């Protein structure tokens, strides 16, 4: 799960974010402790703590003294909003740019997107496939 492409603390933060976005970590539920993250991913506890702290700083998680870390109310919508913005920057903008180069109209583009959504498998089956790999 952890790879060498970027700092581990960022990967830990992303893993937690993914859990919140896909609903497996509900708002106001407790997230595992940094030591549990460290043991599970076999990483340095300080690194795991750094990843968690990134999310605390951005208000996604909050600390209950003596109990642990919890997902903040509104965390999911905050993440979805941010990721939608990132999605626009990373994918839609280059898509639109390329489409303009090729002279594809907005209408044609919409049709293509609709056609492609039929090709994308359900998230569940996608997971199974990657697990099988």
């Amino acid at each position, binding site marked *: 799960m952890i790879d060498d492409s970027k700092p581990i603390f960022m990967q830990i933060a992303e893993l937690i974010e993914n859990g919140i976005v896909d609903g497996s970590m509900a708002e106001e539920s407790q997230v595992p402790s940094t030591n549990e993250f460290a*043991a599970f991913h076999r990483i*340095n506890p300080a690194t795991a703590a750094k990843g968690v702290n990134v999310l605390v700083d951005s208000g996604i998680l909050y600390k209950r003294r003596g109990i642990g870390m919890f997902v903040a109310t509104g965390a999911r919508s905050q993440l979805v909003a941010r990721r939608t913005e990132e999605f626009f920057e990373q994918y839609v903008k280059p898509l639109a740019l390329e489409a303009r180069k090729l002279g594809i109209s907005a209408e044609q583009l919409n049709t293509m997107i609709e056609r492609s959504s039929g090709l994308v498998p359900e998230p569940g089956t996608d997971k199974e496939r990657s697990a099988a790999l």
Partner: protein
Amino acid sequence: MNDTIVEARNLIKHYKDLNALDNVNLSLSANRIYGLLGRNGAGKTTLMSVLTAQAFATSGEALVFGANAYENDAVLSRICFIRESQKYPDDFQPRHAFRSAALFYKNWDQGLADRLAADFQLPVKRRIKKLSRGQLSAVGVIIGLASRAELTFFDEPYLGLDAVARQLFYDRLVEDYAEHPRTIILSSHLIDEVANLLEHVVVIDRGRIIMDADAEEIRGSAVTVSGSAEKVDAFLAGRKILHRETLGSLASVTVDESLGSRERAEAQELGLELSPVSLQQLVVRKTMAGAGGAGHTAGTGDFSDDTLEARR
């Protein structure tokens, strides 16, 4: 929390015709896991021996907890350094060694030692000199972990341990460290296995420190670009190249720099493939770059390859 507990200044250790330590300067902070990485014979064990006053530097200064460890009980009682070739009294069994350690380490945890011995399936009532290489390593690992010394050195603790036992060691290390933070120095040449456990990395090569950085800074600090040689070279012109490999008209070049998102996009447009560089690959590249570009002929060198193992 981040007090300096080890400070080496201009350490030189000179053997007959070899500089085992060549002007080493190093500063280590409390409560971190350090990786002391390098090839066999690079000076890892010598450095640890000098720091713990088991060996003597030719010149320079080594301070641990603010003082020289030599004959200093106040400092020594906080250190544990079981070396890779550790010797034990002739009649000793593992349980005797553990009871000995219990006499000298105030934080010794006998329960932990017992659990670890069971985990490693160590025959605690067999004479140590009759143990296999892996079981001998397990004895050292158990003393190192159960001593809970503020400054604990592990000197290539995996020798002779199979993959399962090594993973067991890494898991127990992370678990116990999380509950009882202390300074751990893990000397290793199996870098891939320990990379994720390390907070800070010190690489030593022929007695010199060639890398001293936080593991997270190193991660992603280098990248390998591969594709048509012409395009790769044009794309990377003027950059700090660590390693270059060619196969026909294809090239795979590692640069000691990270690429921004614009550069990544550019590379993608050119049809170049970007791949991350693991800590192990980076250390190998840097070590070989230091050896005067020997990396070009040595191919994909690996620290744990047979030639290196065979030299032991």
